[in-house]
């Protein structure tokens, strides 16, 4: 069941061409709206990063820069929630098949960090079954998943 969009939320639906640099066609506006909805800089950084990674994945790995294919982006931004749904026209992939880039033997591999960054910086990330569509959510006030335990704050 789709939730009702919160009052005052900004919504946008965009189709992007499958070319390098296309992400800016949506991220510029996204950043502006995040600021307008009072999101703090740390969260804006996280959302920007996740959006960028997801969009580049869709354009480059999903649609393989095929000019005949588009990347469909649904955005919702309110003061409490950011939801981005990014869908490409590729064959999809199994996110579980992406090797863990933090394993010792993969630490110096120059690629394969996008999905991990999205997972760490967002509250929720879900792929559809085919693996050509990703849903990213960030809820206001969530601690970043990657935050190391703060020393001396256990009591």
């Amino acid at each position, binding site marked *: 069941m789709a939730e009702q969009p919160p009052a005052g939320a900004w919504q946008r639906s965009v189709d992007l061409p499958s070319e390098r640099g296309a992400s800016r066609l949506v991220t510029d506006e996204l950043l502006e709206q995040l600021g307008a909805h009072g999101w703090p800089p740390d969260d804006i950084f996280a959302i920007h*990063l996740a959006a960028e990674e997801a969009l580049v994945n869709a354009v480059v790995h999903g649609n393989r820069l095929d000019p005949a294919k588009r990347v469909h982006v649904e955005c919702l931004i309110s003061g409490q929630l950011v939801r981005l749904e990014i869908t490409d026209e590729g064959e999809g992939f199994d996110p579980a098949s992406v090797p863990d880039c933090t394993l010792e033997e993969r630490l*110096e591999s120059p690629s394969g*960090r996008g999905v991990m960054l999205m997972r760490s910086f967002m509250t929720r990330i879900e792929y559809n079954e085919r693996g050509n569509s990703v849903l990213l959510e960030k809820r206001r006030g969530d601690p970043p998943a990657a935050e190391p335990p703060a020393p001396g704050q256990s009591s």
Partner: protein
Amino acid sequence: MVKLQGFRVDAPAGGSPATGDKERKAMATHQRIDVSKTGDVSVVRLLDQKILDETAIQELGAELFSLVEVDNRKAILLDFEGVEFLSSAALGKLITFDRKVKTAKGRLKMCGISPGILEVFQVTKLNKVFDIRDDLAEALAAF
């Protein structure tokens, strides 16, 4: 259309546009980085606030690699002061650069990293691969 007789746009004598381009290219300095020397250390400032555009990342990679492969620099400090954002594609270039420096038996350190980018390094455990220092002074002292 009025044809002006007797007027001529001055063209460089014997010069063709192609020659001009070539000269410009040869004179071109770095676009993505600023390199200075402090003692034996090459201090490399990253000039882009946001490192995410594919072309910019390719250029950044080429300019960084040339520091090792062309200039043969052995002690390099990458100063991130002013860099607000980078994507995983840029991480790839940094990893390759780090590897090239190590292969050439050089030393690479990094400093001036914003909290957000530091978190990216921590999440991906690249903070274990890169030699990251708090600020310029500490980094320089560590060479």
